[in-house]
């Protein structure tokens, strides 16, 4: 687990954690290992009693965040959708205490999320967006062998239960160099959570109040968010926005070739789109040529702000990482960057990135990423990010331009690269990652899982 060992384990903070680590699920705080292997399992509860019995059997294998900074045996994470809470027979007054956007579900919120056109829920894969997905179980491990072992444990809990059925299983990870399906090292910049027991890494910024990410603690405004009721159900829980993207690798490569005549030009353009070279080295620290030694070093690969790049000459304003965390960039709108951050666990699936894949058939090879976006207000944050920071450019003074990596591009979309003496505007940018599924899950605390599994409620 080099990513954990090389980074946060050395950054244990002197004050004891103030977040109840024994209660919250490990995945909220524990980064994915490197290399990482895993599987997402989506289940349907056909019968409330069977669903609860399944949870009871699963609970002993769900990891808490205690000692999350240390290398760990493989772990399971569990989330339950609103339809799942209904199927488990959660009482009506509890159901009504969940936020409206969560109750409606991700597909029904498509208009608020800008999930239209190519990304419209009517184009999604099975079984997403139909209120059929009730429970999501994700297994994370640092070896293929452990992945199989923990998955075997999860499977044993389902087998013999006619009341719980597996809708889909999706393996992830196992990419050479842990690169994502467009060929970049990712998952580098995560918000630091106050009171989680670890000091921020260089460049991570001040720790953000725990209540932004975990229910039951004060958030950035000083007050906790409203929690699902009763207290035992909501406290130490959080929400997960689960989004499955298909990477159009052919379209991406065609775009690079159309706009770069040499390998060097193409790789610089690829870096300008993201704000990092494929190695993970940020343009702010390696503006002209890649520096893989910086890219792989967790003490250095995020240690920057934009104070020396106020005009976007290194990292374009519209690049993916500057949009998703503008840091000290001067924005056109009054914005508190710290209340729009989200913890994300990206999990790459399918064959590795192929720089020579150029055909339209290559766009449809099942390959991409499933993201778990984790926040105590995940629904509001994802809607904000989709509307303001991904599918718009106004906040950075970029007009109608959209995020070049995860944005839904309109016809004749452009991407502006600030440059001396005049900016370069690249045409022909397409939607390189298409949304093919999504669900909202509630990720309960360990006590809440027991409460949910308890047939007496």
């Amino acid at each position, binding site marked *: 687990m080099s990513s954990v060992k090389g980074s946060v384990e050395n950054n244990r903070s002197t004050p004891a954690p103030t977040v109840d680590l024994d209660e919250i699920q490990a995945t909220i705080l524990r980064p994915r290992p490197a290399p990482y292997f895993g599987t997402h399992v989506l289940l349907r509860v056909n019968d409330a009693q069977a669903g609860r019995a399944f949870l009871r059997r699963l609970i002993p294998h769900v990891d808490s965040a205690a000692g999350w900074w240390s290398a760990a045996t493989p772990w399971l994470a569990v989330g339950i959708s609103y339809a799942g809470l209904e199927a488990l027979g959660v009482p009506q007054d509890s159901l009504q205490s969940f936020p409206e956007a969560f109750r409606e579900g991700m597909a029904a919120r498509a208009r608020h999320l800008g999930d239209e056109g190519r990304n419209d829920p009517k184009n999604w894969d099975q079984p997403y967006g139909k209120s059929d997905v009730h429970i999501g179980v994700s297994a994370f491990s640092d070896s293929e062998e452990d992945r199989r072992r923990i998955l075997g444990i999860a499977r044993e809990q389902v087998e013999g239960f006619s009341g719980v059925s597996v809708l889909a299983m999706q393996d992830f990870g196992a990419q050479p160099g842990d690169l994502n399906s467009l060929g970049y090292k990712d998952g580098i910049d995560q918000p630091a959570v106050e009171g989680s027991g670890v000091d921020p890494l260089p460049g991570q910024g001040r720790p953000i109040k725990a209540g932004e990410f975990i229910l039951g603690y004060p958030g*950035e*405004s*000083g*007050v906790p968010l*409203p929690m699902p009721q009763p207290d035992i159900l909501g406290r130490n829980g959080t929400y997960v926005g689960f989004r499955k993207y298909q990477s159009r690798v052919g379209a991406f490569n065609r775009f690079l070739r159309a706009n770069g005549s040499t390998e060097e030009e193409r790789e610089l353009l690829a870096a300008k789109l993201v704000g990092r070279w494929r190695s993970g080295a940020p343009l702010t620290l390696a503006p002209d040529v890649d520096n893989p030694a910086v890219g792989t070093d967790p003490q250095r690969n995020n240690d920057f702000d934009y104070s020396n790049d106020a005009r976007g000459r290194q990292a374009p304003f519209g690049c993916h990482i500057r949009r998703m965390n503008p840091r000290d960039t001067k*924005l*056109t*709108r*009054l*914005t*508190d960057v*710290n*209340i729009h951050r989200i913890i994300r666990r990206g999990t790459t699936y399918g064959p590795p990135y192929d720089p020579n894949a150029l055909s339209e058939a290559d766009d449809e090879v099942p390959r991409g990423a499933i993201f778990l976006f984790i926040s105590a207000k995940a629904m*509001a944050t994802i*809607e*904000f990010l989709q*509307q*303001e920071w991904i599918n*718009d450019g*106004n*906040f950075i*003074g970029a*007009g109608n331009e959209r995020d070049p990596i995860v944005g839904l591009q309109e016809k004749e979309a452009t991407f502006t690269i600030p440059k001396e003496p005049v900016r370069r505007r690249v045409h022909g940018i397409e939607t390189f990652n298409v949304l093919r599924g999504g669900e909202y899950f509630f990720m309960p605390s360990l006590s809440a899982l027991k409460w949910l599994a308890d047939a007496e409620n």
Partner: protein
Amino acid sequence: MQSQTQMATTPEHDARVEQKVQKLREIYADAPELGRVALEKGLPDLKRELAAATGTQNAGRIGARQGKVSELTGIIPFAEGGAKRLRGLLEALEGNFRGGDAVGTLHDMRFVFLDNDTKLLFATAYDGDWDAYIDDFVTKIPNSMDLIFCNLEGWPGIHSPSAKDFIAGNQIAAEAWYVASPNLTVAETRRLERVGKAVDEFLDKIA
């Protein structure tokens, strides 16, 4: 508002315009004579406008939007002594509100005292959805918000989870919303001002 938009000339479209005209004649049947005359005399211009009508969109929870520009209108009773305090505050600010610059999305704001200082009419044009950024107001400008809104009856405080509901609850959606440049946000307007200036400087140099 002379519309220069080219009229669509499909038969269906013409029929729809004629239907609208017929409806307007019925509605105006009991209007004063000068109103009825105006309808008939102005018919050629009016038909052009009817043919070009495109409708409005919604701005978040409530209110109308054209392109990127939204409207927010509210009539809210003053709290006890609120009118006096708010007037004093606005006078101290000399009737202006340059602090609005910081928000970055406000095209204008209007404060009108109604009915013997018992109610406030607040009207603004702004970019996008206001509720997307309400949490940013909470952490970035809570004092400015409470300083103004505490003068209104029922304001729960910017930190209250029901602050959004208070605003939406007092909002009156406009029946119509005209925006000359629906795609020009405040940020884009400022950018174009800078670009225009730079172009003029450039032209001055080469002239």
